[in-house]
C-alpha cells in the first residue's frame, strides 16, 4: 500500500469511584433509570458541584503510572452545548489546564518489538446521561444515572501506525488502569470507550492528511475492525483522487463499516470557560508524593521481575502479567507448589482453558492458587502422573475437595515401585510373544511405535497408576 496510516486515540476511562465526580450519587451500573440521579445530577436550580477527591487521586495515579507531568494547578471548565442528556447545558471538563500533562507509554507488539506512544494529556470530566429512544413509544426518554460519572479522557499523540499498534496500546492501557485500580476497565459496560482519529498520508510525506474521528468504539475487536474499514474507505477515496472530509463517524459493527454522523453541529463552538462554581485543583508536592507512595508494582516492572525471579520466558511473563489478578495467582501458586515453571504452565494451559470454556474471570475460578500449588507438589513428588493431575484438576474444578483427599478417594496414586512394576512388565511381555517378536525384528523407528502398545497394556493392567516413565525404562530392559 502507498498509504501510511496515522492514528491518535482518545480513551474515555470511567473511574472506579463509589460516587459521581460532582455529586454523592452512586455510580453503580445497571440500576433502574434515574434512580441514581440527585438534584445536582438533574441540574436543579441552585445546585452546585463538589469535586470528588478520589477522582483526582485516580487521575494523578494514572499520570504517575505513565510518568507524565502532573498539573499542580488544574482547572475545570464548562463545555457548553444543548442536549437532553446534558442537564446543565454544559459539561464540566478540563480544557486549558488538564490534571495530567505529557507522558508516554511503551507497548510490546506481537513480533516482540516495542513501540512508544506519546500521551498528550489526560483530563477529568463528567459523563453525560443516556437518551433512550425505544423505552417510551413516540418519545425519547432520558436516563441520568450515568450523568456525572467521572471520566478520565486520555489523549494520545498521533503516534500509532496500525490497527495492531492501536489494539496493543489499548490493551496495555487496560492492563495499566486495572493494575492501578482506578477503573474496572469493563468495556461491555462502557467503562473504557475509544474515539479513533485516523488519517492517511503517502509514505515519505511528513504532513498529516485530513482526519476523521470515529466515535465511541467499545471493544478491542471493534477498534481493530473499525480501523481496517476506515483505512480501506479513505484509501479508496484517495486512490480515486478524492478528498477526505473532516468529520465525525460512527462504526457500525453489524455492517463492518464507518458511517458519517451527518451532524448539523459541525462547527460547534463550545464556549469553554473556567467553571466559576469550582476552585482550581491545586496539588502540593507532598500530596503528589503521597499518591505516588500508593503506586502498585506496574506491569512492566512485574514482567521483568517474573523473568528474573522465576526464570520465566518473555511470553509467559507477559501473559501472566496481563492482569494483576493473574500475576498474584501465579505468585501464590508458584510459592505454594515450589515450581514456577509448572505453575505458569498449568495456569496458561489447563486453568486458562477452563476459564475460557466457562467464560469466567480468574476471580470466579473454583480452583484456588493454594490448591493448584498443592497439585504441583503432588506432580513433583511423583504421586501424580500428568494425566492423573489433569483428573485431579478437573475434580478440583468440580469442587470435590482438596488435592490429597481427591487422590485418596479416587485411588489415583501413581505406582513408582519398580519391584511391583517389574512383575506387571514381565506379565505383559510374556502374554504377547508375537508383538515381542515383531518388536525385536523392527528398526528403531518402528520399535518406538510398538513400545506404545506395551506401555498401553501395562497402564491398563495397572489401572492407569503405573509411573509411565518407569514403565518405559523397565520395558526397554525387558525387550532387549
Amino acid at each position, binding site marked *: 500500500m502507498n498509504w501510511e496510516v496515522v492514528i491518535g486515540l482518545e480513551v474515555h476511562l470511567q473511574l472506579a469511584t463509589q460516587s459521581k465526580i460532582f455529586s454523592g450519587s452512586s455510580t453503580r451500573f445497571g440500576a433502574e433509570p434515574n434512580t441514581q440521579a440527585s*438534584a445536582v445530577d*438533574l*441540574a*436543579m*436550580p*441552585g*445546585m*452546585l*458541584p*463538589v*469535586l470528588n477527591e478520589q477522582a483526582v487521586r485516580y487521575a494523578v495515579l494514572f499520570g504517575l503510572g505513565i510518568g507524565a507531568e502532573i498539573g499542580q494547578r488544574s482547572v475545570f471548565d*464548562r463545555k*457548553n452545548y*444543548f442536549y*437532553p442528556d446534558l*442537564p*446543565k*447545558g*454544559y459539561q464540566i471538563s478540563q480544557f486549558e489546564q488538564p490534571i495530567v500533562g505529557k507522558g508516554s507509554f511503551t507497548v510490546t507488539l506481537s513480533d516482540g518489538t516495542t513501540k512508544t506512544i506519546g500521551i498528550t494529556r489526560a483530563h477529568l470530566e463528567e459523563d453525560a446521561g443516556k437518551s433512550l429512544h425505544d423505552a417510551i413509544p413516540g418519545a425519547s426518554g*432520558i436516563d441520568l444515572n450515568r450523568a456525572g460519572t467521572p471520566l478520565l479522557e486520555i489523549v494520545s499523540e498521533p503516534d500509532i501506525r496500525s490497527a495492531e499498534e492501536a489494539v496493543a496500546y489499548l490493551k496495555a492501557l487496560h492492563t495499566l488502569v486495572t493494575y492501578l485500580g482506578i477503573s474496572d476497565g469493563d468495556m461491555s459496560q462502557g467503562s473504557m470507550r475509544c474515539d479513533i482519529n485516523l488519517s492517511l498520508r503517502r509514505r515519505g510525506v511528513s504532513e498529516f492528511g485530513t482526519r476523521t474521528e470515529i466515535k465511541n468504539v467499545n471493544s478491542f475487536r471493534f477498534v481493530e475492525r473499525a480501523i481496517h474499514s476506515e483505512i480501506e474507505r479513505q484509501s479508496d477515496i484517495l486512490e480515486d483522487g478524492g478528498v477526505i472530509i473532516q468529520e465525525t463517524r460512527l462504526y457500525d459493527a453489524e455492517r463492518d463499516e464507518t458511517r458519517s454522523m451527518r451532524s448539523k453541529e459541525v462547527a460547534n*463552538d463550545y*464556549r469553554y*470557560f473556567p467553571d*466559576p*462554581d*469550582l*476552585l482550581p485543583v491545586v496539588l502540593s508536592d507532598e500530596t503528589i508524593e503521597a499518591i505516588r507512595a500508593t503506586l502498585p508494582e506496574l506491569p512492566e516492572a512485574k514482567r521483568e521481575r517474573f523473568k528474573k525471579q522465576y526464570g520465566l520466558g518473555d511470553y509467559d511473563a507477559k501473559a501472566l502479567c496481563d492482569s494483576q489478578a493473574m500475576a498474584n495467582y501465579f505468585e501464590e501458586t508458584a510459592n505454594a507448589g515450589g515450581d514456577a515453571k509448572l505453575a505458569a504452565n498449568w495456569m496458561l494451559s489447563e486453568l486458562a482453558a477452563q476459564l475460557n470454556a466457562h467464560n469466567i474471570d480468574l476471580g470466579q475460578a473454583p480452583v484456588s492458587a493454594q490448591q493448584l500449588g498443592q497439585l504441583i507438589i503432588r506432580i513433583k513428588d511423583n504421586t501424580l502422573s500428568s494425566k492423573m493431575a489433569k483428573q485431579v484438576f478437573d475434580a478440583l474444578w468440580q469442587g470435590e475437595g482438596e488435592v490429597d483427599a481427591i487422590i485418596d478417594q479416587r485411588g489415583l496414586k501413581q505406582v513408582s515401585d519398580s519391584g511391583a512394576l517389574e512383575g506387571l512388565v514381565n506379565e505383559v511381555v510374556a502374554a504377547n510373544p508375537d508383538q515381542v517378536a515383531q518388536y525385536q525384528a523392527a528398526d528403531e523407528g518402528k520399535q518406538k511405535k510398538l513400545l506404545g502398545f506395551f506401555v498401553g497394556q501395562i497402564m491398563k493392567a495397572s489401572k492407569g497408576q503405573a509411573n509411565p516413565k518407569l514403565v518405559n525404562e523397565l520395558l526397554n530392559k525387558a525387550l532387549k
Partner: protein
Amino acid sequence: MTASIRSLAADLRQGKTSAVELTQEYLQRIAQFDDQLNSYITLAPDRALTQAQAADERIANGDASLLCGIPIAHKDLFCTRNLATTCASKMLANFVSPYNATVVERIDASGAVTLGKTNLDEFAMGSSNENSFFGVVKNPWDLNCVPGGSSGGSAAAVAAELCVAATGTDTGGSIRQPAAFCGITGLKPTYGRVSRLGMVAYASSLDQGGVMAKSADDCAILLEAMAGFDPKDSTSSDHATTHYSEQLNESIAGLRIGIPRQYFNEQLDPKMTALLQTALVELEKLGAQLIDIDLQQTALAIPAYYIIAPAEASTNLSRYDGVRYGYRCENPTDLQDLYVRSRSEAFGEEVQRRILVGTYSLSSGYYDAYYGQAQRARRLIAEDFAKAFSQVDIIASPTTPGPAFGLDSKTQDPVAMYLEDIYTLAVNLAGLPGLSMPAGFYDHRPVGLQLIGNHFDEATLLRTAHQFQQTTDWHIRRPSLISGGKA
C-alpha cells in the same frame, strides 16, 4: 412599630407578644399594604404559623436564639422546600424545589418565621425590580419610584415593615442599591462568606447572599445565623465567622475611612455630595479618620461586570431547557423547537439580552477580547482595593448616583440602567463585603452611604454602621405609606 430584632426578642421572652401573634400581625400588614407595593411573590401563612408555634415552644423552653419567632422573608431566589421558588421568572413560575438553600436551612434552624418569598428582577438581573414576571415592585417612600433591584421586594418589604428582616442576593449591587433606595441597611458579605447552595445562580463568581433590615444590628443578627462554611459549596470559605452582633458597641475612634476621589468627583450630583458629606462628618465626630484615596481602576468596573456577569449567566441559565422542570412550550415539533420556544417564551427581555451578550462574549474568536480582557480588568480592580486597604480600614462611597428613580424612566435604555450600579459593581468584582446604610433624604427619597470592607471584615462594616445609627435616625424613619403621614 419600627421594631428591632432585639426588642421583639425581649417582648417574646417577656410574654408581651407571641411568635404566633407577631406573625399574624405581619400577615395582616402584608394584606393591608402589599397590594400597593407588590413586594411578595408568594406568601406562606400556614407554614409561617406552624413555624411560629414551634418558635413559641422553643422560647417557652428557654432554648431560643434572638431570631426565634422573628418574621422574616426570603428573596425568591433562595430555594425553599415545599414553597414555590420562582426567581420572578415565567420559566420557574411552577417550580417547587425539593430542598432548602443552605441559607434557608440555617435561618429555619434559628427558629425565625418565614412569611413568604419576595419579589425581584427576573433571575436577579436588573436594578429596578421592573423585570419581574410577577410585576414591578414600588418604592414605599414614593409609589411612583422603583425600589431598586434586584432585591427590590426584600427592600420594600423591610422598609414598609412587612417583615422584620429579609435575605437578599447581590451580584453587582442588588442588596445595597435597593437598600439605599428604600432607606434600610443592607449588607453584601465577602464572596464565599454565605453559602450559594440553593441560591439560584445568576453570575456564580459574583453572587453572594446577604441581609437586609432596618438597622446594622438586625443585619448582624441575621448574618450570624446565615454565614459560615458549607462543604456543599466549593466556593464557600472556611474562614472563621465572628459574632457580628456582639462587636457592635466598640467605638470606631481611630478607624481609618478611605474616601476615593474617583467616587466623590464632579460627576456626582452635588446634592448627593452634600448629603453624603454630612454623613461622613458624622462618622468623623465618632472618631473616625477620613483619608483621601485613589481607586484608579473604578472606570473598568462597569464594562468588566457587564462582560463577566452575562457570560456566566448565559451558561448558568442553560439548564432551563424545558426538559426536566420549569416552563415547557406547548406541542414542540422537535428538540430544537422545544429549546427555542420554551426559552423564548419563558425568559424576559433583560434575561434574554444578557444570555445573548454572554454567549457572544464567550464565543471562540471573541473570548480573549471580551471575557479574557474582563478578567484582567477584574484583577486590576482587586489589586486597586488591596492597595487601598493597606492604608485604610474601610472605604466609604455613595451607594447610588442618586435617589430612587421613577418607574419606567430607564426601562428603554439598558445602558442608563447599568450605570445605576457604578458604585457597587467593583465591590463584587473584588469579592469584598459592602454595606449600604441610610444617610439622609433627597427630595423625600432616602439615599445610602456605602461602606466597603476588607475581605471577611463584615464586623467592622456592621460596627461602623451601628455606631453611625446610634447618633442618627435615618434608619428608623418610616415611609408615610405606613405611618399614616407621620414620618
